[in-house]
């Protein structure tokens, strides 16, 4: 088969790793050369923000000192002296070697996180996902008939790994080799993606968070719920959005527990509702939530103790009422610009429907409804977590009031893991990719005209934002329809 030929011809995972690492090192070295000679920098503005914040932390002085209750005993500066630094101080500390070793240390760190994420993706694919997956990119109709003859030992890969008597999946060697090569191809989607390596080598810190998220997923898929809870708390401290994964984790823990109990023969609606709610509220889920929340609050308390209210405000509270009036993918930008405080709709008192539309709830409710609802709908088994997290994250990003290209990385991260679980034809997949990229390209073309050519294209750009929401929602819907749940089996 052509596919097997392609798989055999594809480089080994070690080669892909070496290539990916070399590529990133080359780009970082290039960035130093380029930035020294060009007014238009390769390095992202954010990297300058992180580096400046690190400098503030490491070199306290008059007017620059941490503001927490313990600050008088700890001589560190305030990273929030740096305007637009809205991250945890731990990131600034992480980049301390920028000052001690080399200014590009942070880029190497972020690139290293990319590589580690790629290794994790490969490991997950080989050990958990591919052994049970449907053949990739085949139409559902073709696949359905072959499923029953492939009752693969799915759950063995997902057994609680604390059980010493590991039931290994035994596959003939050619199958194992094919699985390994498939995993390499899929992991290469992350490692060799221009989107991924350009973001990290330009100095964006997204790869640190994506590594935390992947580690959380890794532990969850292996049933290591305590570790997953701690990592989820850490991820949420880093950036708030991973909190949405908590509900899906809780759903899986509760569902697994309930599956071990015998279902009562007949239940009235109240009993059935109670039984359903017990999925989410029981000793194990409370334990998970407690550990996760405890980690989040413990980290927050330590950081607050040193850096005080500026940490709370800039890292979390700012996002509650931020007004992103400048153009970005979200169509909300134009609405925010036209309704910004200080810009009045002259004369008239607003009718109630316009007041409601302008309120934060108009965006927050659909966003959180989908982001959390997807966790409730889809995460019933451990193997569904990848799909659930993908849908939750994509919905969060599409419906967010601000969206830049880096946000896409939050859900693209899951694609290599999700592809084996999708029953979508090649043609349809290409259409989805085309739509996903095309809507962005359309928006970027107008954004360029506005920002650099100074053309009055606000309205057109806003329309492109609507097209972006519609297009990406359609793609997400297609992926949801293509998720093949029929390969799930229970022991």
């Amino acid at each position, binding site marked *: 088969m052509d596919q097997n030929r392609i798989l055999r011809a594809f480089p080994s995972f070690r080669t892909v790793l070496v290539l990916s690492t070399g590529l990133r090192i080359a780009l970082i070295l290039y960035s130093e050369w380029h930035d020294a000679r060009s007014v238009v920098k390769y390095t992202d503005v954010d990297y300058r923000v992180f580096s400046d914040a690190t400098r503030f932390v490491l070199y306290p002085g008059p007017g620059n000192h941490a503001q927490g209750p313990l600050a008088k005993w700890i001589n560190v500066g305030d990273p929030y002296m740096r305007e637009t630094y809205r991250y945890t101080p731990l990131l600034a500390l992480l980049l301390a070697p920028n000052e001690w070793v080399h200014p590009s240390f942070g880029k190497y760190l972020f690139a290293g996180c990319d590589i580690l994420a790629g290794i994790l993706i490969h490991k997950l694919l080989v050990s958990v996902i591919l052994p049970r997956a449907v053949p990739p990119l085949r139409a559902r109709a073709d696949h359905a008939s072959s499923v029953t003859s492939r009752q693969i030992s799915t759950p063995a890969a997902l057994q609680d790994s604390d059980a010493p008597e590991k039931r290994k999946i035994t596959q003939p060697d050619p199958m194992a080799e094919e699985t390994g090569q498939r995993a390499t191809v899929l992991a290469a989607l992350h490692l060799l993606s221009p989107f991924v390596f350009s973001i990290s080598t330009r100095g964006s810190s997204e790869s640190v968070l994506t590594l935390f998220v992947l580690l959380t997923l890794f532990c969850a898929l292996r049933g290591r719920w305590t570790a997953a809870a701690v990592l989820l708390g850490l991820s949420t401290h880093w950036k708030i959005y991973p909190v949405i994964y908590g509900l899906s984790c809780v759903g899986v823990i509760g569902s697994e527990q309930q599956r071990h109990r015998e279902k009562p023969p007949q239940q009235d609606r109240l009993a059935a509702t109670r039984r359903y709610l017990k999925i989410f509220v029981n000793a194990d889920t409370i334990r998970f939530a407690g550990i996760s929340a405890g980690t989040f609050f413990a980290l927050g308390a330590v950081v607050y103790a040193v850096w005080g209210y500026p940490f709370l405000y800039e890292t979390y509270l700012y996002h509650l009422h931020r007004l992103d*009036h400048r153009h970005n993918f979200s169509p909300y930008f134009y609405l925010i610009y036209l*309704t910004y405080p200080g810009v009045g709709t002259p004369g008239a008192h607003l009718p109630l429907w316009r007041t409601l539309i302008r309120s934060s709830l108009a*965006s927050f409710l659909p966003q959180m409804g989908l982001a959390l609802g997807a966790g409730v*709908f889809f995460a019933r088994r451990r193997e569904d977590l990848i799909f659930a997290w993908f849908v939750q994250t994509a919905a969060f990003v599409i419906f967010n009031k601000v969206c830049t290209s880096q946000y896409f990385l939050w859900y693209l991260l899951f694609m290599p893991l999700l592809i084996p679980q999708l029953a979508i034809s090649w043609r349809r997949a290409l259409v989805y990719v085309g739509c996903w990229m095309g809507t962005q390209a359309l928006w970027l073309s107008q954004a360029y005209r506005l920002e650099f050519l*100074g053309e009055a294209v606000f*309205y057109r750009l806003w329309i492109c934002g609507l097209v972006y929401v519609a297009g990406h929602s359609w793609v997400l819907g297609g992926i949801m329809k293509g*998720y093949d*749940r029929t390969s799930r089996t229970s022991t």
Partner: protein
Amino acid sequence: MANVSNKSTVVSSVLTTTSGFHTTSLTQLSIFNAPASSCTLKQVYTLPPLLFVDPYELHHYEDSYSFEVSGTSNLEAPVFAMDKKDTILLLNILLSDLRPEHVLLLVTLPLHMRYGYPTLETEMTEGFVNVTLSPPVTFWSCSHSSPVPLPENLRGAFAAFPAFRSSAALFVVPPAEGGILTPHTIRIPVGHLEDARVVEFSTVATILLAFVYLIRIAVRSARSPLEGGRVKEE
């Protein structure tokens, strides 16, 4: 302006572009020896509220100049969230001790534009607002024992930067004959307030339609083929 024997001139001051949200001011200086050894070369820019500099970006030019900013330097806010005062930017241009008697210097200053007030249909602006940027004033700042009349075009800088109040004599570097030193008009696109109603309705409608579409698919997709032994329909 005080008399000074110095042949330095400003050759030109141009902007790389006068439309869009980013531009760069390029000022070419023909510099001869300073009027006195105590003199330092400076430039003052008066930036209207629609324009701003990124102080963190200016650190990339630390080989060429150091700087001080008087006024708000908020990097994100639109003009209608700022106070209405101009920002005064003072550049201290670095001159190497080893430079030749005459040198041509290029002072590069990246500038950025804020979002302006959206227009009303009644205003015949076609969706743009114009902002005028005066060319910078280049001058020598020399210590002087007796008071020297302050050049008029430096009074704003003098008020903004108290450091000038030490006994300094300020000698403006004149434009070169035929030099390009005219104010620049930058055209910045702005939104239209009359779009607000359509934008409000259409944005929320699109969001809600997308939400309903995805919820429907989610509900259908979530129905497990294994529950109740029923096979999922294609």
